[in-house]
């Protein structure tokens, strides 16, 4: 390819007169970039990345610990709940037994009182019955005496009472 107005060769890439210039600036550029990267940029970015990785793994470890602690707390809570339930059950049983004992004692006491009162009443009834029998014989004696008097018979009081007693005995017998 012929250049119409130039004395340069067709491809500027093959113009060897510019090579020293390009190579010099290339070397300068590469050295500058290398120094910037190795002195400033790469250590900085590397430390940031390492720090981040460290933070993430620390946080994950901490989360693991907290999870463990939460599980332990839950287990302790459940244990305490279980114990409290057992204690409550015991208290209920105790109270039930106490009440039962009190009740039994009260029932026994009441039974004893009832028996005593029944015996007393029986005694009273017996006394009343006795006095009634006595009164009947007295009345019968008196009545017999009166009847005899009415009939004009002088009766011996002693004989009347004996006869009445005999009659009553026979009547009842």
């Amino acid at each position, binding site marked *: *390819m012929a*250049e*119409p107005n130039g004395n*340069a060769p*067709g*491809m*500027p*890439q*093959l*113009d060897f*007169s*510019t*090579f*020293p*210039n*390009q*190579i*010099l*600036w*290339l*070397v*300068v*550029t*590469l050295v*500058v*970039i*290398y120094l*910037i*990267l*190795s002195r*400033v*940029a*790469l250590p*900085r*970015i*590397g*430390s*940031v*990345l390492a*720090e*981040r990785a460290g*933070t993430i793994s620390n946080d994950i470890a901490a989360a693991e610990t907290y999870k463990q602690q939460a599980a332990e707390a839950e287990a302790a809570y459940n244990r305490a709940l279980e114990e409290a339930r057992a204690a409550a059950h015991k208290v209920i049983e105790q109270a039930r037994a106490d009440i039962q004992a009190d009740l039994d004692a009260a029932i026994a006491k009441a039974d004893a009182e009832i028996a005593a009162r029944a015996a007393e009443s029986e005694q009273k009834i017996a006394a009343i019955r006795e006095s009634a029998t006595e009164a009947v014989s007295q009345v019968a004696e008196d009545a017999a005496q009166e009847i005899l008097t009415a009939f004009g018979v002088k009766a011996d009081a002693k004989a009347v009472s004996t006869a009445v007693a005999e009659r009553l005995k026979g009547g009842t017998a």
Partner: protein
Amino acid sequence: MADANGGLNIRPMDQFEVRPLFGGDTVGMFTITNVTLWMALAVVSVVLLMVVGSRGRALVPTRSQSVAELTYSFIYKMVEDVSGKDAVRFFPYVMTIFLFVFFSNVLGLIPFAFTPTSHIAVTAVLALAVFITVTVLGFVLHGTSFLKLFWVDSAPLALRPVLALIELISYFVRPVSHSIRLAGAMMAGHAVAKVFAGFAAALGAAFFIPILAVTALYALELLVAVIQAYVFTILTCVYLKDALHPHH
């Protein structure tokens, strides 16, 4: 190719010319040229991305710090995976090569920009630096047993001398392919873009056809710029692996 009226006067190679920035015609060794300017811009870009971007040192990174960290991790993993764990001491070296090639390629896509990596002088120096580093490192670390790289133990004995010759040739072709691949890809893309742009000026009413073509080409060129930087870096890592572990 040149029209009589100068209508179709496309000179796609002009963009690769090395020119003094502050007047004068001669390009001496220490002349400040467009090469100097665009390499300096690459340095500025590296500083902006890797130093300014990461200055917050935040535990939760900002966007720019994220990009810097991503670039760091990307190349770090590449060195570790391709060259081995003991190669991470060469990480700053590989990172320098990657960032220089990457920013030279991408900045070169700015219209009227100069692309240092389209010059064989630049890519050859980069490739030779890798080649010499790898060769010297291989001999320093392994002595003469580094030569076993060329002696394929797993092949039949009769074939080994032939394979050794092939391996030796391929070893010395490495810097050539390494450098010409990058310079060729950059130069071809930029020249084609310039040719299409020249058509747009010359075609008159149908100007939009080459402009659409240039637009599509630019997307492709951006891809090529990134991929070539990646390829250049990963090949550096592969060669570094040979120096560190020559016994296949």
